[in-house]
Every structure is written in structure tokens, then in C-alpha cells.
């Protein structure tokens, strides 16, 4: 008779074999829409992706300021690491913006991970891990840009295009809604935004020939409210900008993979949209290709497009416009500022998305000319099959998705800049669902590149100061009430600059490059600046010279000594 098996029991959660507490204080239970509307009235917190609906990435906290920032030290470090065979095993990066509510931090990482941490100590309170298919299509790495919180829930998107709601006290899943088709090449990396009783997300997959969209779901239940496609179908406004007798619109791109900003008075969400598809082969999609490469104002209740401005009509350079629209009022005007991949800064009237001012923000631009009203004259672009064409900026853009910021104290915009070109050679290919659809071979310049952090006056479009770096600058920036701007370098240094002068006043080596969004908060009167450090993502596209850098996976929280 065979010996009976030893009872191995039932599998347990991996976190049960760690110091994870399994519970967090119920701090998000009282995070109402009213509190989100007035997020900057709570300087101790960082309640939304950008810190506030206006997208400014500004913290009023001033305990850490230009006079004492030299004393800034790491208070704690939280590390994640990588385990087993997971999707995008060579491309994972930490790209999130940490949310903080009354001493508890909520932050996502790559591969479906989400953590609640004690914001004062870095202690892990709970974790959630969404199983991510190894074979999910990822354009630009295994990344996630953050979470949203409201009314006791934490919201996150997953690589396989679900939006999920978690109980903020223990990380247990409350609801789960798939909103993209992974068989079509869709995925999700966006940080959700809670507006009213909705949670709003967008799709990734712009290199796979999908039809970009943004979706709203009921915050409490996950029930769909609306979907807005950024490529019109036949009969819809904007379809006239696509070939009328072809299939190009069906795979036109214009994904919304970055969180919109929101003006509650106008009830408009401000999206940047992604590139058209195929990226570099315009011959199969004649026309302006709305609403690719555009700033699009969408009614938050209905999901209807109310206004738009297209930054790069008929894009042939992969100039996504997904990056933020910073909302601010100046001299009685309701404005939106946008730094585009194409190298130009746009100041728009956000009531109708009409241009107020357009100016270049990178030194080398030869792809085309753009006048002061944003009218485009293309100059250099891939055209003939097999003919290599070099242009500036390259498809990495003069600025990547990582965010600029605005200080209401200095009334200046601060932008991370990439001055790098690329060569694209048009190679036409047939479209097949789920297969990358670029229409070119592309090589981004290696050594001939640099970066800077610049301050711009939105009134004039003039550069006020510049701090230069040997490498492209591709982390988001953070402005604070301490007259400081924070941001990281690809080589791992996390810097503070004087917001008025641009003087480099402090730095700390975090051990891995920065491709994320720092935020600031305080606990019991002590101010922290938190920076995710973890290089990776689409490095071959924006900085191939640093493709071999260590990944890293650490969250650094800095504060002043007692």
C-alpha cells in the first residue's frame, strides 16, 4: 500500500511571508469629491495624480526650502525588486506618482503591484498583486503610473487593461472591470482619475494599431458610464481627416495613456492623445488624422469631445501629445500649458483650446516649422521607402510623457527637456492585429544628445533659466512652496533647483535612473519629498545610451534632520 501523502495544506499569500501588516488606517474613507476639488487646501496630502486637478504638480509645503534644502537626507527607502518570469522582464521601471493621504502612501509599481506604506516610516501596510500575463503586448515596458483614491477605495489599472478598485484598508479587491482588448494589442498603464462619482482611465497600445479611447466607470461599482474614442468613425466629426474609403481609422492610434487634468468650472477633462498609427508611414492615412497628437477637452459627464487643438497634424515623427496640460489662470485668462514632443510649448485658452502663444523649448528642431499660432509646415520626414531620414527631435520627443510643473508663486513653468534626434527609414508593412505597426525602422541618436531643466514664462514664452545635463532629462518635475523644483536624472541623482534662479542647490544619488513623478507631503508637521527610482521602460526610444543601466526599484523619502 502506497504511503499517504504528507498534507501540504493550502497555498497562502506571499505577503504573509513578509513583515507586511495587512492593514492600513481608513484614511481614504473621507476623501470625497469635495476634498479632491480642494486638494491643495490639504498641503500635507497628495490626493491625485498631479497633486490637484489642475495638473500643476505643485505642493504648497515650504518647510524644505531654498535656504535649508542642503540638509535634506533620506528618511526611509522602500525596495521592491523583481521575482520570477514576468511580463516585460527587461523593461520594468518605476514610473508612478505616489499618493499620500493623512500619513498613508498608496503607490503602484510594475507588473500589477500596488502598496500601502506608512508615509512616515516606509513600513509596508498591505500589498496587492494583479497577475499580469507574460505575453501581454507592451509598447513601452512593464510600467504603471499610479493610483487614485476616494471614498475608501484605491483605483489602479493593470497591464492587461483592467481597472480595479481595492479596499484601501487591506488591499482586497472590491471590483474589477476589463476595458481593453489584449488580443488587439491594448494594455493599460495610466493612473486613474476620480471625478465626481466616476473613475476615469485610458488605453495604451498606440504602436499596435488600435483605436484609442478613454473610459469612465462608476466609482462604487465599476459600472460603465461612457467611452470616448479619440479616432472618429464614419459619420462622426473629424472623420473627414481620415481616408474616406479606407480602413485607416480603425487602427489610427490616439491613445490616452496619461491622466487628464480637469477644470471643474468648465467640467472639462484635458487629455493629450497619442501618435497616429502606423507611426511613420503617413501614406496609408492621408489627412490630418484627428484626434491624434492633440489636446482634447472632453465633457466629464457625457464623454463628448467639446474642443481640441492638434499639435502635429498628420504626424510622421511619432510625436505623441499625451503629456499633461497644466491649467492655470493668468491676467484673467483661463489657460492650459502643454510641452509637446514636437519641441514646442503651447499656451492655449482652455475654454475653447485656441492657441494664445507657441514657442520652441528645445534647441534643435528641424522636422518642421510651427508659427506663433501653431500652424505647421513639415520640413523633414520619412517619405520614400527605404530612405533614411534624420530629424530633431526624435520620436522620444523634446519632452517625454514625464511631467512639467507650474509654480503659482513664481508664475513659471518648469520642463524636463530631451535634446536628441533620430533616424527613421520608412518600411511599409501590412497591418495585422496585435503586431507592432510602426511603418519604419528607427534608430535614436546615441552620443549626440543632452538634456536640461528649463523655466519658462507663460506670459512671453521666453526661457527664464536653464540647468543643463549631459543626458536627456526624463523624470517629472515637482514645484514646491519652498521655492524649489525637484527632479531626477537618468544616472540616478535626485536634484533640487532654486525655482527662481535655477541654481542646483542639492542632490542625492539614488542608485538608479529617474523616470517617474516625485511628490511631496507632510506627516505630523514634517515635510517629505518622495521619489521613485527605477530605470527602464522604453529606454531604447528616449535614451539608448543608457539602455544598459541598472533597473533599480526603490522609493526614496527625503526629509530634513530633526
Amino acid at each position, binding site marked *: 500500500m502506497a504511503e499517504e501523502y504528507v498534507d501540504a*495544506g493550502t*497555498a497562502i499569500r*506571499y505577503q504573509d511571508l513578509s513583515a507586511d501588516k495587512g492593514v492600513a488606517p481608513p484614511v481614504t474613507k473621507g476623501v470625497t469629491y469635495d476634498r479632491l476639488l480642494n486638494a491643495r487646501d490639504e498641503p500635507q496630502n497628495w490626493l491625485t495624480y498631479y497633486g490637484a486637478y489642475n495638473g500643476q504638480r505643485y505642493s504648497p509645503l515650504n518647510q524644505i526650502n531654498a535656504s535649508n534644502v542642503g540638509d535634506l537626507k533620506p528618511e526611509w527607502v522602500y525596495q521592491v525588486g523583481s521575482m520570477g518570469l514576468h511580463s516585460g522582464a527587461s523593461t520594468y521601471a518605476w514610473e508612478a506618482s505616489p499618493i499620500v493621504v493623512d500619513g498613508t502612501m498608496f503607490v503602484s509599481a510594475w507588473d500589477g503591484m500596488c502598496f500601502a506604506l506608512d508615509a512616515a516610516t516606509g513600513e509596508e501596510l498591505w500589498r496587492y498583486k494583479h*497577475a499580469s500575463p507574460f505575453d501581454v503586448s507592451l509598447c513601452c515596458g512593464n510600467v504603471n503610473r499610479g493610483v487614485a483614491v476616494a471614498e475608501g477605495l484605491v483605483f489602479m489599472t493593470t497591464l492587461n487593461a483592467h481597472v480595479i478598485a481595492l479596499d484601501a484598508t487591506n488591499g482586497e479587491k472590491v471590483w474589477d472591470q476589463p476595458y481593453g482588448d*489584449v488580443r488587439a494589442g491594448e494594455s493599460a498603464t495610466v493612473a486613474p482619475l476620480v471625478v465626481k462619482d466616476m473613475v476615469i482611465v485610458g488605453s495604451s497600445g498606440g504602436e499596435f494599431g488600435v483605436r484609442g479611447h478613454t473610459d469612465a466607470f462608476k466609482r462604487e461599482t465599476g459600472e460603465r458610464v461612457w467611452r470616448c474614442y479619440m479616432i472618429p468613425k464614419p459619420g462622426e466629426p473629424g472623420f473627414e481627416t481620415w481616408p474616406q474609403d479606407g480602413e485607416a481609422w480603425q487602427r489610427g492610434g490616439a491613445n490616452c495613456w496619461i491622466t487628464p487634468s480637469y477644470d471643474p468650472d468648465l467640467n472639462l477633462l484635458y487629455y493629450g492623445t497619442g501618435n497616429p498609427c502606423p507611426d511613420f508611414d503617413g501614406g496609408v492615412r492621408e489627412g490630418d488624422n484627428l484626434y491624434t497628437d492633440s489636446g482634447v477637452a472632453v465633457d466629464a459627464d457625457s464623454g463628448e469631445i467639446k474642443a481640441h487643438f492638434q499639435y502635429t497634424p498628420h504626424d510622421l515623427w511619432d510625436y505623441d501629445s499625451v503629456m499633461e496640460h497644466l491649467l492655470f489662470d493668468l491676467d484673467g485668462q483661463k489657460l492650459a500649458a502643454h510641452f509637446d514632443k514636437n519641441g514646442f510649448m503651447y499656451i492655449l485658452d482652455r475654454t475653447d483650446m485656441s492657441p494664445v502663444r507657441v514657442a520652441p523649448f528645445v534647441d534643435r528642431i528641424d522636422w518642421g516649422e510651427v508659427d506663433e499660432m501653431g500652424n505647421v509646415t513639415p520640413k523633414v520626414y520619412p517619405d520614400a521607402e527605404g530612405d533614411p531620414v534624420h530629424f530633431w527631435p526624435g520620436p522620444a520627443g523634446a519632452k517625454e510623457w514625464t511631467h512639467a510643473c507650474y509654480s503659482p508663486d513664481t508664475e513659471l513653468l518648469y520642463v524636463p527637456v530631451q535634446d536628441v534626434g533620430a533616424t527613421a527609414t520608412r518600411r511599409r508593412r501590412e497591418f495585422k492585429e496585435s503586431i507592432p505597426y510602426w511603418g519604419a525602422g528607427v534608430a535614436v541618436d546615441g552620443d549626440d544628445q543632452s538634456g536640461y531643466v528649463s523655466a519658462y514664462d507663460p506670459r512671453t514664452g521666453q526661457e527664464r533659466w536653464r540647468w543643463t545635463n549631459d543626458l536627456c532629462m526624463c523624470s517629472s518635475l515637482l514645484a514646491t512652496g519652498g521655492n524649489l523644483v525637484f527632479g531626477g536624472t537618468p544616472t540616478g541623482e535626485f536634484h533640487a533647483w532654486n525655482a527662481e534662479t535655477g541654481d542646483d542647490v542639492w542632490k542625492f544619488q539614488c542608485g538608479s535612473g529617474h523616470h517617474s513623478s516625485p511628490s511631496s507631503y507632510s506627516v505630523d508637521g514634517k515635510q517629505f519629498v518622495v521619489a521613485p527610482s527605477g530605470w527602464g521602460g522604453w529606454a531604447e526610444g528616449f535614451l539608448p545610451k543608457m539602455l544598459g543601466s541598472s533597473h533599480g526599484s526603490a522609493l526614496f523619502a527625503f526629509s530634513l534632520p530633526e
Partner: protein
Amino acid sequence: MAVAGLDKQNSVTLGRILGRTNVGEAEESGGKMTATVRIPEDQLVYDPGVLVLPHGGILELTLINDDKNTHCAVLPSNGDTQFIWLVNHSKGTATLELDGPGYYWYGSTTGNDEGRGLTGAIVVGGNVPDEAKLDRPPQPQVEV
């Protein structure tokens, strides 16, 4: 393809090339998916090494270690990775929630079990719900 030794321990290479194992399917009955995976003696492999589920959902997985060494399984599941310790000649269960479509690797994190061959795959078939799909006509597919 019968390249000698790739599916054996300490033959051409040190361990066993991943994925060169048996393929099995989960059973479905009463809306429940079940399957059994075994670790045979001295093979350092999950059998079946590729387990196919017809669609996403909950899988009740039985794991049996028939080997004379101790292993484990670190398994994918929504919520958190699931861990089970499998001493010599032991049997246990895991409840896994997985989305489809897509596939997931899992393995034994003991020593270099993963490298020697104890890395398995769970393949989930099916499609996303219609409401998650794109509003467009059917598109050209890669020919098999």
C-alpha cells in the same frame, strides 16, 4: 523535435530546457475549473508543465510532489502571488484567480529549481468581454 537530452536533467546542459514538458488541460464542471500538477521523481519539472485553462476565472489546483526532494510553487493569482511549500511526498492545493487571455509562469523558488526546470506555465484562453473590445470591424490576423 527530439534534440537529445534537452528534456532531461544533466544531459546536454545542466538542467532541463523550460517548456519541454507535457501539456495538460484543466477540467471544467459546474462552473469550476480544476487541475492536478505533479512533480515526478528526479525530473525537476511540473507535470503537466503547460496547463491550459479554457478561460479566465478561478482554478482549484492540486499539487503533488512525488519527488524525494523538497520543492515549492509560487503561483500567479489576482490579489497576491500564492505560495505552497511541498516537502517530499506531499500534496496540497491552491486557489488561483487568473484573467484571460494570456499565459503566466510560475516556479519553485527553492535553490535553483526554476533554472533546472521547475518553471511551469498556466495558459488561459478565451477573450475579453464584448464591452471591453474596440468598436471596429474584424481586423486581419497573423496567419498560423
